């Protein structure tokens, strides 16, 4: 049996009443494992922060149950949950010093004085803030405030640490540094981290598992690899990384429970064996999704999966994105790694063939 720290069972949160009812979260169920770095990923307004606030106890769900270590905590106030939060705004207490901020939770738990001092010193060392422990929180930089917020939330050694877009206020360099730092802290403390972000790159690099959310629902839960390479729905594929979507004909289906079938692109004779999702078994058409880096460009068009003309080239340093106008008028992006040798370099206006292997084709549920 998998060891779950948090179990969310059929939880929903509605705000207001008809006709202005807002379903911030609608019947969400998800289990979060012990010592896992779990990310809630989605655009703003998808319900990820609401879910986090329900776990913290700042809001009560309209329905459903939240369990922490198999105990129902749905109606417990925040101060009775072994859950701490790193706020997006940090919310460091302005009237206290760095060290006093970190000791606050421990004092509220009535820990003995020597234990508090020891833990505060440990936490200051953990986030490299020993030198600044007597500073006021408005006398330190944003990155330092971030680290104090982390230390303050980690000091009481909660079962679960909630992080509400904690890196969004930092600049790019600092953010990359903190991503590595956060991952290190999670491994060192062994605490379950639930991380909320709208930054898909952040989610992919840091998480053990990701839940992609939209409009109050969890669409897919999986490892970064699963989410990136095997999205089940168009929204997930579109939200994470760059994607191409092409409409295809379903030409062959195995009967019964088997999911294998085959598809064919328009104006093409070649058929590709692929997996067909259960809900598409009886359809004639489907949407196929292809990552830009999984397609290959060539000057020859014979035998190509798709053909088109090069409309634009965008240089990204490591890669170049080729924007191609397909023959049916739609757009397609191919990403190719740049090499010192140069290699194949088409010019704008060239007629090109796009080659895609069958294992790079994913038929989406919708």
């Amino acid at each position, binding site marked *: 049996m998998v060891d779950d720290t948090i179990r969310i069972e059929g939880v929903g949160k509605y705000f207001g009443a008809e006709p202005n009812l807002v379903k911030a979260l609608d019947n969400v169920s998800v289990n979060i494992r012990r010592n896992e770095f779990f990310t809630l990923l989605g655009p703003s307004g998808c319900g990820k922060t609401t879910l986090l606030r329900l776990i913290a106890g700042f809001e009560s769900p309209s329905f459903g149950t939240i369990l922490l270590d198999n105990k129902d905590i749905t109606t417990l106030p925040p*101060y*009775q949950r072994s859950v701490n939060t790193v706020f997006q705004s940090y*919310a460091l207490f302005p*009237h*206290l010093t760095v060290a006093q901020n970190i000791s606050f939770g421990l004092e509220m738990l009535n820990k003995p004085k020597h234990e508090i001092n020891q833990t505060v010193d440990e936490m200051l060392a953990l986030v490299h803030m020993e030198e600044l422990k007597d500073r006021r929180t408005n006398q330190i930089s944003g990155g330092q405030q971030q680290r104090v917020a982390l230390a*303050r*939330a980690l000091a009481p050694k909660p079962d679960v640490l909630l992080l509400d877009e904690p890196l969004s206020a930092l600049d790019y360099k600092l953010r990359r540094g903190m991503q590595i730092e956060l991952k290190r802290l999670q491994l060192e403390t062994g605490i379950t981290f639930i991380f909320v972000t709208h930054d898909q790159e952040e989610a992919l690099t840091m998480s053990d598992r990701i839940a992609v959310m939209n409009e109050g629902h969890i669409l897919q839960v999986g490892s970064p690899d699963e989410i990136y390479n095997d999205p089940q729905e168009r929204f997930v594929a579109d939200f994470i990384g760059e994607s191409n979507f092409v409409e295809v004909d379903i030409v062959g289906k195995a009967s019964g429970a088997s999911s294998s079938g085959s598809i064919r692109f328009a104006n093409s004779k070649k058929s590709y064996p692929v997996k067909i999702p259960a809900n598409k078994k009886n359809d004639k058409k489907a949407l196929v999704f292809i990552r830009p880096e999984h397609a290959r460009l060539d000057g020859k068009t014979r035998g190509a999966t798709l053909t088109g003309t090069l409309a634009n080239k965008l240089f990204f340093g490591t890669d170049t994105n080729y924007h191609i106008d397909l023959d049916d008028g739609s757009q397609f992006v191919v990403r190719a790694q740049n090499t010192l040798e140069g290699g194949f370099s088409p010019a704008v206006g060239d007629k090109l063939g796009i080659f895609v292997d069958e294992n790079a084709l994913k038929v989406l549920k919708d």
Partner: protein
Amino acid sequence: MSRTLSALEQEQIRRKTRANWLLSTPALLLLLFAASGPLIIVVIYSFLSSGNYGGVVWEFSTDAWFNVLYTKDIFDDTVSLSDAHLSIFWRSVQLSFLTTVLCLFFGFPTAYFIATRPPSTRNVWLFLITIPFWTNLLIRTFAILELIRNQGVINNSLMSLGLIQEPIRMLYTDFAILVGMAYVYLPLMVLPIYASMERFDFRFVEAGYDLYASRIKVLRRIIIPIIKPGIIAGSILVFVPSLGAYVTPRVLGGGKRLMVGNLIELQFGQGKNWPLGAALAVTMLVIVMVALIFYVRLVQKSERNHG
């Protein structure tokens, strides 16, 4: 700063300073004439002799200052501490302190309530708080008198309900003065606390709950320390005018329960002892200053202890 300012920069700073001084000139002039002027006159008067029919005689004397604390028996010239003056000063300080406590007790929850309303309705509540200012203080004080006198609204209703057999004496007591002053000065407590509370980031409260602080602990350890400037400002705004209150103790305390304001008025009026009135006024000023210094010290000390 190691860099020296260029001539142009110095000229710009000078020009800016001059412009700022110019803008504040009207207020400074007003203060000089309306506040410092009379104050200087009062201090000078307190060292002069009193005229027979009021006013002062330009003759140096410390009698007035002597009379603030001591009385000389008219028959045998024995000197004793002036019980009347001391008890009036003591009552004034006590009542002003209690008024401040009472205003804090009622004002803090009110300010908290207003600050936690949605922004659109906050102005309505603030507007309601200022309504008492629309009516003259004297009229409001007489309204309270009408409520609490022996044949007043409260006593009459209680008697007609049979809850009491004879009226409860409320008028002309310290209680009446306290109620009147707390009512009059309550907005002066609510407004500064509200101003602090409005800027207060209520995410600190969530952070407190998150870190295992109960409601009471959040109030004591987070909200009160952060909005302390508002509490200090409100307390000063209530305490200082309470100490000098004149109308409220006059109307609700009758002629018997005097406060310093009434005592001073007495010297300039019926008493015809202007230098004594002036000396009493300066004494009150000193009490206010000492009280404020003491209060600020106390606050700073608690700040050091709690961080």
